[in-house]
Structure formats: C-alpha cells, structure tokens
C-alpha cells in the first residue's frame, strides 16, 4: 500500500532488522507476534449484527492502532426473475474514513475503498460460505445481507482487521424468524368435514424435498409474517465457517505478521491467505492474493500456505473464544446483572 512514503535508508534499516536473527522490529515483537487485538460485538443496536475491532490500540488511552467497525443489516428483497439469487445475497462494502488516510486524495481513497471492497466481497459472497437461512420464501423473497465496514484508522494490517471484523459481525448477526404464509388449494378433494384443530392448509416451511427431484417446485407462498417480533431471531447459519485472513509480509527469505505502516512500506510482497475452519470439515483456503511488486515461486508458496494455515488457526481459536465470551457477556451476564439489581 502506497499510503506511506518512506526513504531508501529507512527501508533498508527496517528490512535489515527483519532479516536479522533474531528479528528486530521497531516495537520489539518477534516476526510471528501480533499486536493486541480488542473486539466488541453488538456495538450498533439497530444493525442485525455488528462488531468493533482494533489492532494495536494503546490500552490506556485508546490511541493509535488500526480500528474498524463492521455492521450487518438485513433487508427483505423480492427475488427477480430466475437470476439464481433465490436464496439470499451477501453484499459487502468497505468505506474508509478520510481521517484514516489523511495523505490520500479523494480519488486515491476511492480506489482504496474499491480494492478493499472487492477482496472482501469476492471472498465472503462465495457460494461455499453461503448461509442457508437467508431464504424467506423460496423463489420469491429473501434476505439481502449488507455488510458494511468502516475503517476508522489504519496503522497497518488492514486486511486482517477487515476479515476479523467481518467474521465478528456475521457471527453476531441474527436473522429474524419468518414464517411463510401460503394457501394451498385443495382441488379434487371433498371438502374436509369436521376438521378439528388447524387444518392442513397452513404450511410452515416443512417441505422436505428429495435431492433427486429436479423439477422446479412451485410454491404458492406469497407472503410471510414475523411470528415473534420481540425476538432477535436465529443466528446466521454457518457462523463457524466465516474465514479469517492472515497477511504474510514477505521479505525474502523471511515472512512476518501484523506489519506496521512503515514495515508495510518497506515490504516488497504481501500474501493474503484467507482460511475457513468449518467445525465438521478440514480447513479450506478460501482466497489467496498477492500484493506488491515482488514474486514468489510455487515451492515457496506451498510452504507459505502451510505456515499461514497454522497462524490462521491460532487466530481463529482466539477470535472464536472471544466471540463466545461476548455472547455470554451480552446476554446471560447482562440478565444476571439485571436480576441482581
């Protein structure tokens, strides 16, 4: 990222520090150390899921560091004709606060936002990660999930921050429960006499369809209702699948994690590896991207991916633990506190 300009002398000094054994970084971290990450969910009460994440913020006064806010908002969408979006869509967008990049012109800022949006959107809207519960009425209505991330401050490692915040916000997202309302005409049937209890005309999403059945199933459901409007809803399906990103900053032959802006400026190539760790399946590499002018050969790449998976796993464990803690804090503990008042 060309956001920070740097002199040749500075660059060679930083590179020399990284190549030394043991590596010397300006803030004294080792090559695989992350700065401290803080994470909070539910920061935007009107969103369906939200999170605020910062990397390397000063714990005492909250200054410095990279800071992003992510919010997921669900919107009812009428499915247009046959364009294959019948089961909901995810649209991501990243916007950068100009104060995060004071030295970028408006045009450059737009470009940056666009780059970040593209990476995030292409990765998260992939079919392999698609949550199954975005459908309201099959083929008629579905949820459109808008995931908006705002970059408030960037002091390095923005991609990792973006993906982590996205994961946290999506983890936090709850989909309002809906019930499809449908009227099935019962043709050629004698009128049910003395039907007791609810007659079978009401169909509440109970259809189980065989996988062999390739016919187009035409549902008569026209509308839906909210059975319980006080309820936040159920969690977005596949919350454990949402990936994390690890940026490997390559200063051949070594690589390091969580670069500071100056370090980023003096690193020729960066490799983004996005891993998903589904609970019941082996980890998958969801995306891979090279940033910068340098080059990496295939053999090196292979070992880097293996290394990256290891880092990503650690990161995932930490973030998932924190997210679960947040869930408890916001619900159970808050209730207990209320009861103890």
């Amino acid at each position, binding site marked *: 990222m060309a956001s920070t300009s740097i002199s040749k002398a500075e660059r060679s000094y930083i590179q020399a520090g990284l190549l030394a054994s043991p590596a010397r970084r300006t803030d004294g971290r080792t090559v695989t150390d992350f700065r401290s990450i803080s994470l909070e969910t539910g920061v935007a009460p009107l969103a369906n899921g939200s999170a605020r994440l910062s990397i390397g913020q000063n714990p005492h006064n909250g200054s410095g560091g990279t800071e992003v806010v992510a919010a997921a908002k669900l919107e009812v969408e009428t499915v247009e004709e046959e364009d294959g979006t019948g089961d909901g869509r995810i649209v991501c967008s990243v916007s950068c606060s100009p104060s995060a990049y004071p030295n970028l012109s408006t045009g450059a800022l737009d470009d940056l936002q666009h780059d970040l949006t593209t990476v995030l959107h292409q990765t998260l809207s992939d079919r392999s990660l698609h949550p199954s519960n975005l459908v309201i009425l099959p083929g008629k209505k579905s949820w459109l999930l808008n995931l908006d991330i705002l970059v408030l401050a960037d002091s390095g490692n923005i991609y990792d921050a973006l993906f982590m915040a996205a994961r946290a916000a999506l983890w936090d997202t709850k989909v309002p429960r809906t019930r499809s309302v449908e009227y099935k005409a019962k043709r050629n049937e004698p009128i049910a006499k003395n039907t007791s209890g609810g007659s079978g*005309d009401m169909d509440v999403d109970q259809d189980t369809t065989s996988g062999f059945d390739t016919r187009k199933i035409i549902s008569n459901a*026209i509308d839906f209702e909210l059975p319980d409007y006080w309820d936040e809803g159920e969690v977005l399906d596949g919350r454990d699948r949402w990936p994390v990103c690890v940026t490997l900053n390559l200063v051949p032959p070594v690589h390091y994690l969580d670069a500071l802006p100056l370090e980023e400026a003096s690193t020729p190539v960066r490799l983004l590896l996005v891993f998903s760790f589904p609970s019941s399946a082996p980890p998958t590499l969801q995306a891979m991207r090279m940033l910068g002018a340098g080059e990496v050969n295939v053999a090196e790449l292979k070992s880097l991916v293996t290394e990256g998976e290891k880092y990503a796993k650690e990161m995932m464990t930490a973030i998932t633990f924190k997210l679960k803690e947040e869930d408890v804090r916001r619900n159970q503990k808050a209730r207990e506190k209320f009861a103890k008042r």
Partner: protein
Amino acid sequence: MVEITIRKRSQTEAVITQRKFFKKTARGKVVKVLRERYLRDDVGCGIEGCRECASSDEELLPVNGDLTHQSYPNGHYILPDTNVFLSQMDLLESDRFRSPMILLQTVLEEVRHRSLPLYNRLKALTKSEDKRIWTFYNEYRSETAIVREEDETPNDRNDRGIRIATAWYNTHISLTRPPIRGQTKNAPPTVVLMTEDAANRQKAEQAGISCISVRKYVEGMKDASQLLDLLSATGSDDVEPTRASGRQVLYPEYLSSATLMAGVKAGELHQGHFNPNPYNYLEGTVSVPAFSKPILLAGRENMNRAVQGDIVVVELFNEKEWKAPTDEVVDQEATLKNDDAEDSAEEGDENGEDVIAKESRVLRSAQVPVSERQPTGRIVGVIKRNWRAYVCHIDSTSLTSTLTTSLSTQTVFATPVSRLLPRIRLRTRQAPSLLNQKILVTIDRWDTTSRYPEGHFVRSLGKVESKEAEQESLLLEYEVPYRPFGKAILDCLPPEGDSWVVPSKGGGDNHNVWRDREDLRDVIVCSIDPPGCQDIDDALHAKLLPNGNVEAGVHIADVSHFVLPDNPMDSEAAARGTTVYLVDNRIDMLPSLLGTNLCSLRPYVERLAFSTIWELTPNADIVDVRFTKSVIQSKAAFTYEEAQIRKDDPHLQDELTKSIRLLNSLAVKLKAKRMTAGALNLASPEVKIHLDSAESSEPIDVEQKELRETNSLVEEFMLLANVSVARKIDESFPQTAVLRRHLPPPKTNFEKLQDILRKTRGLTLDVSSSGALAASLDKCIDPSEPAFNTLVRIMATRCMLSAEYFCSGSVGRDTFGHYGLASDIYTHFTSPIRRYADVLVHRQLAAAIGFSPLHASLHSKSHVEKVLDVVNRRHRMAQMASRASVEFYVGLALKGRGEASKARGEGEVREEAFVIRTFRNGVGVFVSKLGIEGLVTFTRDIQFDADNYTVTVPGSASAGSKEDAKISVFDKVVVQIEVEKDKNTQRGKVKMTLIEPVDSRAL
C-alpha cells in the same frame, strides 16, 4: 468551567435499557425498532395516602380498596390480565362494576396490540368519572420491569410481568402500612390478579399471589345476578370443564388471517361482504369482484359461522359442484322449532341429528340442476366481524323455567328482529322477566362446536309493541345515531337562540352578515312543501322579465352560514349524515333550533338563503344562471294541495298565484325535456300513514300517497338547481367536488324481469339505455289492470343500483352520469337542513363564487371520500329505517282494521295483491294498496314451474274448487292479511293467506 456529565448509559446495559423489536411494514420490509427504556423508582402506586409514592391531584384509588366483596373482607383492588379486557369489556363498562382497578402498562399495550377498538374502549373507561382505575407503568418502575428470558414467548413474558407487578403491589402495600403501636393491626387490602387464563392462575398461586377468575369474582359481588349476565360467553368453559370435552365439531376451522391474505392476494380466495338470503336461512351470497354473479354459499357448513355484513374470504368449489340458488322458502323458526338451547351444542343428541337431517333434506332438494348456475363456494375465514348489538326477542320455548321468581341461570335463544341473522344463544338469570321484551344482545363468539353464536344480554329496551321499545329498536337496528345533541354541539349555535334575526342592513350588522349578500326581501318568494313540514329548506320565485324571458329562482336555506366547518356541530352532522324520518318521529341531523327555526325558510320572516337564479326562455332553456347568497322573506308557505288549489282557481290573479303558474308552466317544459333525454319515471311503493292525533299516534289508516302537479313543480326546479350547481362546483373544484351519481345497472340485473315479462305477458323490456328502458316501460300496460304498469316499474327499480355521493376526483369522468335522471352531472344542493352532502356542496359553491375561502378539508380528496362514505351509508340506513317504521305502522293499522272488521263480523282484512315471485312452496305477493310485500306459503305439495314462473295448486274439495289453479307472476290474487304474533318470540309478523283463486287456508 462547567463540568459536563455524560448520562448516556453504556452499551453493556443494553439488555435492560433497550427494548428491541421487529416490525413488518405494509410494503413488506422488516424494520428493527429500538426503544430506550429508563427505569425509575418513583412510578406511583396510585393508592390514596401511600407514604412512599408522591400523590398527584389525579384521582387515586381508595385506601382500603373495595370492602364489599365477600371473598376479601379486608378490602381489595383488582388487577386484570389482558384477557379480561379482551373478553369482558361489557362487564367492566357496566355501572354496577365499581371495584377499584389497577391497569398495568403491559396489559394496556397488549390490548392495543390485540384489538384497537377494545383499546379505545379501555382508554375511554380509564377516563370515565365513575370508574376507579389507576394506570401503573410497571415497565418503567425498576422493581417491576422485566427482561425477556431466552426461549420465552412474548405471552409468557407479559404474564410473568403481570404476576411480578401483582406481587410487588402486595409487598408495597404491606411495607407502606407498618403496624402502629397501640392499634390492632388491620390486615392490609389485597391486590387480586384477575385472569381468565388458568395456567397463569396456577403459576400465580404457586408464587403465593392471590388470583381469581372473572366469573368467580363476579359471583362474590353484590349485584352478582345482574352482572353475571354481562359476562361474555368466553368464560363459561373453565367453569364447567367437563362440557368442553367431546363436543362435536360442526363447522370447519378458519384459516389463519395471514393465510387468508396470501390466498386473496394470489387470487385463489375471494373476499367480500356476506349477505344472507332473507328467504332461506341456509343460504347466503358473497359478491366478489372476480365474478359478475355473487358466490353462492349453500348450507350452514359452507356459510361457516358468518353473520350478515362480515367481511369473509371464500374458497370456490369446482365448477361441476356449482349450484343455483334455491327457489324455496326456508324459515329458520319453522325448521328449528324443537331445537333446544341447552343441548344444541352437545354431542350427538337426537335433537341435533334431527336438525341436521332436516337441513340436509332442504339442501338436497336445492341441488336440482337449473340452467342458471352461479359460482359456489365455502367460507374459509373471516377478515372482519361486523358484530354489533342486535335487537332480539327471547324465544319462550327455549326457557326451562318461566317462573319470574326463578333466578337460576338458563340458556335461552334470542331471535333477532332481522331475518338475516341467526338465533343467538345466551345464558341469563333474568330469562323469565325478559319474555315479551325487546332486548339488546351482543354476539361474543361462535365456536366450531356450537351451531349458534353465543352472546350475552346487554339491556332491555322495553315491552314488545310499546312505541318506545319499537322505535328505539328500529333506530338501533339501522344504527341511526339518536342521542340528544351534546353541550359542545349546542354551544355552536348562535347565542341569541330563538330570538336570532337577520340584523338590519347597514348599522346594526356587527357580524358582517350582509357582506356580499343580495337583498331579495322584496322578491315574491314562496315555499311549497308537504303538510306539516317544519324544516322548510327551499323556496321559489318566478317573474317575467321585460325581454320576454322568465327569471326563476330557487332559494335554499343558508345552513353553511350557521354550520361552520370542523366544529363539534359540523362533525356531528357529518357523522349523522342525514335526518331520519320515521312515521311518528324525526331524528334530526342538525339541532332543531337551526332545522326548524333559524334555517327554515318560514314565511313573513327574514331568512338567510343561498339562491340560484336563472334567466329562462319561455321554452325553459337556460340563458344565464347565477348563484348568490341572499336574504329573503318568504311571502307564503303552501302545502302541495294549497298551491294546487290556488293555481287552479281562475279568480285569483295576484302576483303570488301568477308566479306559481309561471313556475308550473316552466316545470312542465323542463319535465318534458328531461323525459326526452331519457329520464326514468321510477316508482316505489309509497304509502302514507294517517295518525290519529299527535299524542296517541295510533295509526288510523294507510293510504297511498297522492301526487299532484305541484309536487312535480318543486321537483323540477330542485333538479334544475342541483344540476346547475353540480356544473359550477365541478368546474371550480375538479378534484374534490361533491357530486351524486347513479350508475347504469348491469344488463344482467334485468335478465329475470325480462324473462318473466316475456313468458307471462309477451312483453319485452329494452334495457340498452335509460331512454329505451323508459320507453319500453311505458309500453308495459295491461289495459284491464292500471296498477300493472306501476308494478313493473317497481320491479324494474329494484333491479337498479342505488345512487351515491362521490368525490369528483375519485372516479373517471365518464361515470359521473345520473342514470335515472338522464343527466351527465348531478349533486344535492337543495336540502342542507337534512342532508350533510348538501352542506358540503354549499361550502364549495360559496367558494366557487368567491364568497368565502374553501375550508382546507374540502380540498383533500381523501377527506371528502371519507365523509361521503359515511354519508352514503347513513343515507341507506335512514331509508331502511323509515321503510321499517312505515311497515311497523302498517302492521298496527292492519291490526286495528282487522279488529274493527271482526267486530263488525266481517272477518279478516282482505286485499288485492299481485304475485311478484314464485317459490317451490309459495308465492311472494305485493299489496299495492298497503305498500307491503308478503309471503304466502303452501304446506301442501304444489307444482312449481321454475321456467315459466308459475305454480299450480291442485284442486281439492277443501280448497273450494275442484279445478287446478295456476298462479303466475303478475297475476292478481286476493289475500287475507292478519297480523299475528309469534307465540314464542312475540315478534309481530304479517301473515298472508291466499283467498282467490284458491283458498290456501286449508292447504
């Protein structure tokens, strides 16, 4: 430096401080709504003298609660659950129910969510002065606020909140009343949770909260027997739990409302108003936009608990199952005579089976295929109930004990006065004393297991056939607002009252009454009205102009001068819509000071008027028309008869008589023009009731209204004025002009009449246009029977649609026309004292001539539409009410006449009548002399020829002739008319029997 403290609560407390919920908007979007909640410690308990809670000057609950209930000798307050308000509002509204009540915010909100009308009644209840209700905002008091647990349904959460609030109240009361040394400690009053929900009661008991069901509570009250009747039927189930089990389901369940909406949207289901068939209680129809013919619903099960006027959703059957409406008269009372009120809901009792068998017989016979099939279906749901209070009689046979001293609860049938309604089952302790009374009954519910709707007794109107009871029941039945005008309304009248006069021109005119008013006091104006008319709203004048043309003027009472837009009097008039004329009474739209005095264009006094003045050629073509507010002084008030005599008297040559003659000559030409344009000469049976004297108001006799030339004179000029005004206001306010139209009737409406005429008389009716119809109606003459033409006209009129008010911007310009009058545009301008639409038209016309600015509400299309909807409905109801009133008096007159003729030894009243309809087991007849319709049913088999509209009564010795008698539509018959009271319900009923050509008394 000022220190700034940030009061915003941290996000970590969100669970407590925020209330979140989702809302689905009308457009189908889902919106998340967030409400901030601040919990306080100073939400008052509302009990007088509570030392903790600051008492405001509002009405507080008494210190010791209510001491009269036998279960709570230490005093108590009741804290009702939501379901109490949802089902027992009548009880809580009763004057006798005076227990102090604590209304929780949770309950209030739940009621609002469940039913808006009930919520509004509840709000009114809390404001009423004789109730002691304290609204406690429990969701905002920190001790009673609760947070929804995980997996807790909203209902459970609310129930829990209500229980916690009850518990808090009880501890609060005991804490704030510590024992005082030296005094014996009185137990503090209890707060009792009142709920119909057994599960909630159980939980409350476990938590040590005292609770009670409504029925139990009322049983312990002082006025238990009266109050118990007000209990809605909902509560009866848990009192006798054994009854609820094993009931036979008689009707299919309704689908959920969301399903119904989905079905209607998808076009699979059809929505419309339910109209029962007045001749056959087992049949009804629903008109839907999808079909030109209404959907037929045959049989109880397919009508599925719909009551007249409900908005229902219908599912169609396959086309091969479509049926034609029955041609048989099926009387509910006759068929269900032996049905027992106690048992009718029970499982498999003999009686029930009997009824089912009987009904299915009726239905089977109805399945005979006839060429005229119409869409048939069944009701699968009800969108909106149209239940109101109905005027009923108690069916005496349904009583198990008729001893007036008996106070045991009985289940009895109440038969509504209207034939369109099913019998209502109700439980009452006062049954014996309610016999022979007209009573008001509300329907509470209609379960799938109950053949009849269940209701409760509201109040008694008085003895059957007493004038007061009959009149009030009539007004209630047609929903005519008849309460006296309130103070706010009377305050809108001029403060001078009776002594108000038009101020003298010039100096004395403080209120600028004369501004822009023409002085027409010298013009020779007169009014012509029916005899005894008090609200004279029109007057006329005519004079020859020097150029040979005629100046004619119509002067209408300037009501809009007194009724200003948007004040209480205006809103009341808008709600009443029209004055209702009953035979012996008039329910005014405006306070009588205006209607019969200040606005009435009485002779010899100065009155404000709104004048329409034409210059007409001697051929009655309009040269010019102008509108102006004016001051007139009528020179005479004639009755039609007086005016006629004056006009015909050749000796009278004064100005007044001349102007009447001038008006008459113009009216004749105007009428001729209208007729050439294709106006219809319609007929409706109109009769006049002679009243003995004002006090006794015993009807002496009935006669048909006489029409004179002068009736037509007034009518023609009113039509002319209405048309001229309509053009003017439509021109000035093309979007919001108040107009009146009469849509051309669909051709299919006439099919049956055309067929009857062709088959029985060989006559044809051309319905292609109003002109063609008028011409062919003129040809429908039977030389031997002059009344035949009138009869055909009456029947043709019934095929037409009714005229309606509309807002010019709401419908297409091509539908503005008035079919009956053959005018392209029309409105009502000439009777503002008795019709609200005319008041609106006056305002618009005043604005159109620049007299005054138009009130903003009359610029709003939606507002005008809303007002006109009400006016249209009121208008319809008013017509039906006056008709019913005439019918009642005709009945009384008949009774009197019958008694008189019996006294003379001449037997029953006999009248000539025309057959207007034939049924499988009877004929419908119209007695033109009395203006009433009746039904003659034959108990013996007769031959019915549906295609030729004839019935053939086989001859027999008992009927007086051996020959078969063939009776077809339009035949003249002689009927014997008697008024008989139904033995069981005391409902008066006109009974007709055929005398000629066959005597049906023996049949």
